[in-house]
């Protein structure tokens, strides 16, 4: 059964349409990203799922139920723009919100303690919310949303307004939350967030989901990878060229076209064996950005819009650092899978 089902959902404010027939299905246990520029209707979509709004037309089902009052407590919500009550200490705030979630006594103390630890709030637990850095406030946002151990977590622009370090912290936090096996929906305008976090994503444009894709499949479709090295000895260059005709190299760069995970692993192993310092590893194009551009271009073409190639919704700023991190995690997961196998 799908955790989220939206069928031809329309929503407008004062006659101005925001959603014009959104349809999507989110199965259990995945991280689904809603990618779109500011004002695309992402928050409206999240608020519909949280039961704050009702659709003008169409069906919104969460856990198969159209009456969203029934699913309160099974859904956690992390709002955008760090909108929390600021006059409490972190502990007091979590205790109050836990009580609103129906927790009490020892169970409440246990859950608050667990989330304080899981979200890395131990050092600021007695500090006032107003005195916290933005990144920490967002951590409190995650702690409050996870208190009732939700099966579905709705996250609205989780890194908006945070500096790059804060963004990384929150992305790491969401990455740990995904291990709890709850379904997560993230609304974002950052391509990197989709790249790092989401198993699947949909592009919200013109009030509709115009395209959906699996991030893993997109990453694998990335055709070329450039490995920059400090200095490539000629003996290593010869050995690399012998690996495959897909390897092309000069003194500073090795280009794999087309790239495959196996070939990439072989090249990296060879470089490490020859003691070559690797400076960076980056795809020649950002697959999600390319996918976004082509989807929006296609949509614009269908509607005869003049600007057929708008910029992507947000900066993919942190570039190859993020990619390296992504590859490190992929390797880690592959290793974990291999160790799990008998």
């Amino acid at each position, binding site marked *: 059964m799908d955790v989220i089902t939206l069928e031809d959902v329309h929503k407008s404010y004062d006659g101005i349409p925001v959603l014009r027939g959104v349809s999507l299905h989110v199965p259990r246990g995945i991280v689904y990203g809603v990618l779109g520029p500011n004002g695309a209707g992402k928050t409206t979509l999240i*608020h519909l799922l*949280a039961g*704050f*709004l*009702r659709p003008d037309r169409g069906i919104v089902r969460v856990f198969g139920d159209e009456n969203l*009052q029934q699913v*309160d*407590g099974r*859904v*956690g*919500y992390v*709002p955008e*723009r760090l*909108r*929390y*009550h600021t*006059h*409490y200490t972190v502990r007091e705030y979590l205790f*109050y*919100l836990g*009580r*609103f*979630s*129906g927790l*009490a006594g020892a169970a409440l103390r246990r859950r608050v303690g667990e989330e304080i630890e899981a979200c890395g709030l131990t050092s600021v637990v007695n500090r006032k919310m107003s005195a916290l850095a933005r990144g920490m406030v967002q951590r409190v*946002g995650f702690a*409050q*949303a996870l208190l*009732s151990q939700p099966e579905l977590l709705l996250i609205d622009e989780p890194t908006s307004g945070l500096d790059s370090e804060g963004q990384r912290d929150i992305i790491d936090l969401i990455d740990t939350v995904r291990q709890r096996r709850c379904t997560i929906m993230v609304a974002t305008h950052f391509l990197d967030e989709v790249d790092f976090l989401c198993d699947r994503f949909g592009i919200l444009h013109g009030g509709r989901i115009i395209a959906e894709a699996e991030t893993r499949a997109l990453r694998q479709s990335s055709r070329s990878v450039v490995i920059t090295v400090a200095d490539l000895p000629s003996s290593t260059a010869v050995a690399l060229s012998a690996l495959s005709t897909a390897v092309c190299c000069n003194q500073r760069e090795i280009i794999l076209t087309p790239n495959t995970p196996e070939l990439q692993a072989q090249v990296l192993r060879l470089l490490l064996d020859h003691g070559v310092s690797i400076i960076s590893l980056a795809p020649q194009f950002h697959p999600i950005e390319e996918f976004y551009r082509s989807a929006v271009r296609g949509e614009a073409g269908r509607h005869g819009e003049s600007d057929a190639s708008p910029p992507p919704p947000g900066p993919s700023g942190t570039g190859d650092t993020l990619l390296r991190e992504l590859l490190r995690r992929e390797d880690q997961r592959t290793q974990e899978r291999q160790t799990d196998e008998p």
Partner: protein
Amino acid sequence: MQALLRTFWFAAFTLSEYLRSGRIIVELAATVAAYYLFFRRWTLPMTPDYFFSTVGLFTLGLTVYTGSTILALGDRPQGYVTLARRLGRSPYLIGLYVSVLVVSWGVYGIICLLIALTNPVSGLDIAGWMLGTLPLLLNLAMLAALLTLLTPIVLPAPWRLAVLALVALAFSGNLISGSTMSSLPEPVALALDVLRTVLSTPLLPAFTGFAISVSRDYSGASAVVPVAQLFLVIGLLSLAVYSFARRELLFSA
């Protein structure tokens, strides 16, 4: 039982924020000012009539301020975080209402205490005080319930205007009367008269409640007035809860 408990915790949460944010200073300053202006008279002994009429009007005025401020706390985007849990919309709204009442009744209590300690009302014993206090507190509860109903998160703007227009029409007797009334065409005057009578009926408990508070005379049909006040409170609150449960949540940015 669970809903009651959540209502209690949400009211405690709201009051705690109200105190910590320092907003309560306005009420405290107004209370001290009112005490010095109206009740700290050394030359003449204070009569029960003077005490109840003055304190009744002062607390009504202050309830309008307290109600607007506390209900505005419920109309912020922070409300999404509280309503995204099992709290429920009714405990949310009633929690806000209870917070208004606690502050308004608290202010009344402080004034009574100050007066009892420094300038006791002559000829007013505990029984008399309780008889005058009951309708006065119910009037505050009614006003708070009306303010709750008129909050933007509860009624949309056109409905709020309609309710306010009806209240204005019910009160229009003070403005449109005598010669103005007789100058109107007979059918219009008759329709206005009927409309006023019908619309002012729900206001009767408020006016008579105030009168009983001052006179403390529960003889005859007056004994029913507190019951009518209570019903009006429940009616207004039920209407607010019903409307809020069906509204979309679009908190003020």
